[in-house]
């Protein structure tokens, strides 16, 4: 039986005492650093963030414009000349069939879209979920039951279906109330629906935490000293929640990146000429026989980024919450 020792209540404290004296965040950091996979994943994420931020610079330095047509790279049928989708010195990852636009350049610009949606979506969703979860947990009573019921209702809807179905009318509605037309409105829509369907999970997590924390001595104590709610939230609760919030956010971010790609694949994400990985994948589907490289490159890139986020999130979770499985013996 391997069950064994891990259950032993004394095994863990022992491991912990090794780095005793460090603050919880330093402690977590130290643990994170030891996790090789997570560190590599972290650097991969940094790499993508770097590329996304400096895409305009990088593409112009290396002459990889994502928009410039290159008729020379195409044959009379509009297919890329050369092997593997026209991989060449000028186009390190080949060109888009039909237009000859550079795929590497488009990937770089696409990283901006993916990461932007990922980050903003995560921040907004986490923020909304955090606030509603705290309100729900602290206030209880009517407000709590309203929030809980709305959460139930939200979860009863088939989210992907609704996201797809409401895409056009809601995007138009957004445009009509003054959100800049085009891709800005589309991105706003995606973030909006991701929030509408995503806040519940965060809110439930936080509500549960708050409910248990509020019974704990330090909160009780603070309350008995007459501490205000604000004080309790910022001084007593948040410091005890941040770790879980960050882990949750990191683990939900890759989900948003993948959702953006899936929506674009279904024709609901961004529209060209803006390059997004999802639109590239959606376009490449038609060429999956004639030019499989064109499908594989954005697909694999997307996979690497999502995987890096997941692994980084796992590492982070293990670091802040060593009781999770990987740290156990």
């Amino acid at each position, binding site marked *: *039986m*391997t*069950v064994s020792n*891990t*259950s032993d209540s004394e095994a863990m404290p022992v491991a912990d005492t090794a780095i005793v004296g460090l603050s919880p965040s330093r402690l977590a950091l130290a643990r994170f650093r030891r996790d090789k996979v997570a560190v590599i994943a972290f650097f991969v994420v940094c790499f993508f963030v770097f590329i996304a931020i400096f895409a305009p610079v990088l593409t112009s330095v290396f002459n990889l414009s994502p928009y410039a047509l290159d008729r020379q790279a195409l044959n009379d049928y509009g297919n890329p000349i050369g092997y593997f989708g026209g991989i060449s010195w000028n186009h390190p990852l080949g060109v888009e069939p039909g237009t000859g636009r550079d795929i590497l350049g488009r990937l770089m610009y696409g990283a901006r879209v993916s990461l932007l949606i990922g980050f903003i979506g995560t921040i907004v969703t986490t923020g909304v979920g955090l606030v509603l979860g705290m309100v729900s947990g602290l206030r209880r009573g009517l407000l709590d039951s309203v929030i809980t019921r709305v959460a*139930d*209702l939200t*979860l*009863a*809807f*088939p989210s*992907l*279906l*609704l996201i*797809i*179905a*409401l*895409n*056009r*009318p*809601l995007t*138009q*509605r957004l445009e009509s109330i003054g959100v800049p037309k085009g891709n800005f409105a589309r991105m706003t829509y995606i973030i909006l629906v991701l929030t509408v369907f995503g806040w519940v999970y965060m809110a439930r997590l936080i509500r549960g935490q708050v409910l248990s924390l509020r019974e704990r001595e330090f909160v009780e104590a603070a309350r008995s000293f007459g501490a205000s709610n604000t004080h309790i939230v910022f001084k007593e609760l948040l410091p005890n929640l941040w770790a879980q919030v960050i882990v949750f956010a990191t683990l939900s971010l*890759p989900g948003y990146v*993948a959702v953006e*790609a*899936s929506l674009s*694949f*279904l024709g609901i994400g961004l529209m060209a000429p803006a390059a997004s990985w999802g639109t590239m*994948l959606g376009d490449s*589907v038609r060429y*999956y*026989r004639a030019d*499989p490289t064109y*499908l594989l490159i954005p*697909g694999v890139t*997307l*996979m690497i980024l*999502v*995987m890096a986020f*997941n*692994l980084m999130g*796992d590492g982070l979770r293990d670091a802040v919450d060593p009781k*999770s*499985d990987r740290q*156990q013996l």
Partner: protein
Amino acid sequence: MLIFIARRLLFALALLFAVSAFTYVIFAALPSDPAALTCGKNCRPEVIATNRVRLGYDKPIVVQYGQFLNGIFKGRSYGVSEGVHCPAPSLGYSFRKHQCVTDLITRSLPVTASVALGAFVLWMLIGVGLGTMAALKRGRWPDRLATGFSVVGISLPTFFVGLLAIMVFVIWTGLLPFPRYEGITSNPAKWFMSLILPWFTLAIVSASSYVRLTRNGILEVMNEEFVRLGLAKGLRRRTLIIKYVMRAALLPIVTIAGLDFAALLGGAVITESVFNLPGMGKLSIMAVNDSDLPILVATTLVAAVFIVIANAFVDILYGFLDPRVRLN
């Protein structure tokens, strides 16, 4: 227990009502003018006006919703002249598809159910199997393999897996025929062949998270004091794993799986798109492209019904399976 069930069902019913009203209102309120959407290049105001009346969009939303509900229970006629009648339960009529929405759904549902059922069986086998193996061999190569699979699987978007599968198994190697859905009644062998790829595609992606769930669940239960006590009693390892660990670890997993399965019944949108399966998801996508509101309302509603029912079912099931819930 009876009270518990009754309360749960009542709640489900209320939720269903809220969901249906909400769905209806969202769709009825949002687009600028559903009647204008029915209009082709010969669009004239009279045509739009006629169509508005035909579709019933000239009435207040509450009335429309009332008619909709009425249609579900009593059937309903659509159109002004020579209207068409859809018997109960009528979920509407699609003037784009020229069919009662209920018929469209009863035709799509078996397809989706076929996809969902096979994928479900596969993903439970793969997910729970690998997850259990990983937990039992924690830290050794089977564990690494399973966790590796799960990380990769979770990171792969469904559509990419599907496209890769077609590329590899159909186009490059020719191991499988071109996917084309065949009803199970008309040709079981073809039905099976046509669904292998969709099943695996869905299963791989879902199984990945079940590997984690199962592995973590089992490890957590293994650390429970009662498992140690069982061991200390002198129970066999196998007895212990099956009777103590699996029973406790799989209960929450089975219930999550029930919810996931129900959600899938509402339409495996992406998988059905990639493999061109005429199921609920594909129906919805087509309806989106056609701005076919009656279908969208109905598919959303049907999907929501599955989720709500599954939720209630799972809760009640939990009541039977977990003695701790019974008292509440």
